[in-house]
């Protein structure tokens, strides 16, 4: 297996599991009879689909934090921007079926007494355009932000704080009605995507499969980056930025590349998230959300791509279960996870049970791949 650095045993196991999930989950919902032991209710399909988009988001954070040492506390912003881009398309697809029946303007614009569509909404009636924007808007913002920040060598805690300021500023901006993104309420009441009814089981299953596919592709892409030569440079930047620079590498360029790529992955995750939960609002930009993403990565294992996936699913699964049982206790548990993981599990769940060494970075050998549910 060592011959192929891109697809090691762990990766193959993970991808096989992902394919299995992409087949079993929709089948359990669509084919199994309701009431039978194998039946999976529709809400669970949407829930698992949501987890998969979170896993993709965690993967994008792991790519920059785990492999390049950039702790972004604003990655939720890229996720939300991707989500808004998709949400805008879904709003346009509602067409004249909205409450006010305006064929062009979304309901909230009619409500605000706007007469015509703002220029930044143009083109979103086309699915391909929205998909392009899902990549370009987060990617573009990350490129500009990263170009400014990395060029001036803003690093470490400073970078974390200004990424947090970025998402905070976006949150405040999106809360304003004048921005033209639905203000406080965000975008919701979606009907269908590409002509498929969003409330139907088949569409949900389709979105689940799409999320699984996106996660698989995102994983392969991240794997491709981290096992390449550039991936080695990224790790060296993480461990000793000044040294990498003195060796002649253009550190800024590598950082900018991986930061932009990561933002685009987050954008895709957001775009898949929105049709499955049915709403996107400015709350997604809140700094607290972005920090939570980081803890998913930390729980699973920073610098291990599978760790990020595992962490996202573990933490969100725990969140769903605990907020269902005892809502008050979840925040305590989340807080404790932050403290205990940083203190006692610096390599995360996956790292703690693997035999790999933290410093080596790059290709991981012999880690016991915890199957992701």
């Amino acid at each position, binding site marked *: 297996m060592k011959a192929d650095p891109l697809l090691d045993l762990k990766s193959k196991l993970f991808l096989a599991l992902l394919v299995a999930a992409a087949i079993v989950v929709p089948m359990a919902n669509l084919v199994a009879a309701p009431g039978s032991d194998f039946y999976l209710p529709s809400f669970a399909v949407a829930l698992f689909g949501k987890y998969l988009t979170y896993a993709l988001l965690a993967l994008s954070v792991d790519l920059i934090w785990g492999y390049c040492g950039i702790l972004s506390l604003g990655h939720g912003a890229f996720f939300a921007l991707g989500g808004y881009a998709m949400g805008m398309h879904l709003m346009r697809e509602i067409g004249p079926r909205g409450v006010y029946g305006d064929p062009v303007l979304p309901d909230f614009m009619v409500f605000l007494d706007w007469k015509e569509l703002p220029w930044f909404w143009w083109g979103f009636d086309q699915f391909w355009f929205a998909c392009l924007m899902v990549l370009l808007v987060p990617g573009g913002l990350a490129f500009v*932000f990263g170009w400014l920040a990395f060029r001036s060598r803003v690093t470490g805690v400073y970078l974390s704080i200004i990424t947090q300021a970025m998402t905070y500023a976006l949150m405040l901006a999106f809360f304003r009605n004048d921005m033209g993104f639905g203000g406080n309420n965000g975008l919701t009441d979606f009907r269908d995507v590409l002509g498929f009814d969003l409330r139907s089981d088949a569409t949900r299953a389709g979105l689940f499969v799409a999320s699984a596919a996106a996660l698989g592709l995102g994983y392969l892409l991240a794997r491709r980056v981290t096992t390449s030569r550039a991936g080695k440079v990224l790790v060296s930047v993480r461990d000793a930025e000044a040294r990498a620079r003195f060796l002649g590498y253009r550190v800024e360029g590598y950082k900018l590349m991986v930061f932009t790529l990561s933002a685009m992955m987050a954008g895709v995750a957001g775009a898949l998230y929105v049709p499955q939960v049915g709403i996107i609002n400015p709350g997604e930009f809140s700094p607290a959300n972005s920090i939570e993403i980081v803890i998913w990565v930390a729980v699973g294992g920073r610098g291990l791509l599978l760790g990020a996936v595992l962490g996202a699913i573990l933490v969100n699964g725990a969140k769903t279960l605990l907020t269902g049982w005892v809502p008050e206790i979840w925040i305590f548990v*989340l807080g404790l996870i932050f403290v205990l993981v*940083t203190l006692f599990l610096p390599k995360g769940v996956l790292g703690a049970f693997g035999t790999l060494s933290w410093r080596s970075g790059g290709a991981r050998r012999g880690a016991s791949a915890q199957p992701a549910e």
Partner: protein
Amino acid sequence: MLLRFLLAAATIAVFIAAGSLLPARAASLETLLAELPEGGYDERAAVVTAIAGTGDDRAVALLEALAEGDLRQMKDGGQIVRVVREGRTHTAFDPLTGAEIGEISSRAASKIRVNNKLRRAIAAALGQLTLASPDRARRLAAAASVLKTGDPEQIEALDAALETETDPEVRTAFMDARAAAVLNAARPTAEKVAAIAQLAGRNDPQVLSIITAATTSDEPAVAAAAADALDRIEQARAAWGAVQNVWYGLSLGSVLMLAAIGLAISFGVMGVINMAHGELVMLGAYTTFAVQELIRSFAPGLFEVSLLIAAPLAFLVAGAVGVGIERGVCRYLHGRPLETLLATWGISLILQQTVRSIFGPTNQQVGNPDWMSGAFEIGQLTITWNRLWILLFALAVFALLLLILKRTPAGLQMRAVTQNRRMAEAMGIRSGWVDALTFGLGAGIAGLAGVALSQIDNVSPNLGQSYIVDSFMVVVFGGVGNLWGAFAGAFTLGIVNKFLEPYAGAVLAKVLVLVFIILFIQRRPRGLFALKGRAVES
């Protein structure tokens, strides 16, 4: 008419000169009341003037009732009553004493009619009565009402009142009221121009509207004078608006500084961001709340000094929690600032949820002691006492902290560790001890910030969250480990924010400030007052 006015003025003069002649007055008011329904409108106007002349306190209510058309005369007996209608029931009251007489049928009494001429007489009489009232507040209120209506009928009454008035504030109020009345009267142009000059000295929206109305006057001289005065007033307002913005900015800056300064020193010494800092502020605010609750139940007399008791307690509570965080968590994460950031975020969640479980998620009422409430005015600038005290408090805390850092051995050690940790250790400084002390001190100051914030903001478990991003911005903007950086950062951001607000709105102003900081960091990645030397690269 003029004769009657003279008569009235003479009557007032007689009564003021005569001092208290209570029984005589009372008698005359009652007889005058009985004369009210009789005769033509002219004669009744004379009666109204005479009623005003009595100077009796009860006359005001009587005349007001008359003007409203509430006075009626009973058909049998001729008694005069004030009738209050509520739906279909008519209740009669004694017009002088206000005592209830009872329900009457609507036909049992006939209305005492008033026409416009009589109404004017009543208004003038009311003006005289209140302008000559021995109660200062009432005289001021009367002047304000004339200013509002600009009733030219009141000029004589005001002139009469001005002759005897000695209180300077009331005199000014009378002069302003008279000027407003003159503008509406048929008076010589020169007098009107003088009136505008008189009014221009005063700055309130009402005067502004009076002068604005005068700019459309038929007399060119008056219109020009009004336009001129309007310009001057606008300029003065703009200037005062700027001063007001600076004051608001200073006030916001003082709050930001209190919240950020503790963060700045722990960031400087240890290179870590304490994400739980906002929650330490919140603990300080809740300490204040708890102290006030205890005082309310056990020693209500101490309420005025509750903040003085709460401040040291808040310092201790937050400081102890801070030392606990440092010894329990941060110590083990030394040299890993990003992990520290995550761990302290976890602590912030736990602290928030703990407070939420104990005190509930809703806002708690923290009272202002008397010396913290109210406001005073300088020119057109309103300064509330609590904001002023918080500014002074913030400055005092800053000065004290500066003193600790510059004049005490502990401060010397902190500065040494800030500049070069390993060198300081080599010189025999116990850096672990310094870390705990710094963290505790920073946390304690956060507690003090909480006491201050409890006076101007809602005390809720989310209190800290709303300030944390702003305090980070202050620290990042000002530069780490530098008190003056935090000082300059806080006040700059506060003032810039408040100057942007009128143009961009509160939210957009904040967004602009954040964007500005993000761009600023590109130029100066280590803040306004960056540390120089080897510490920079470590």
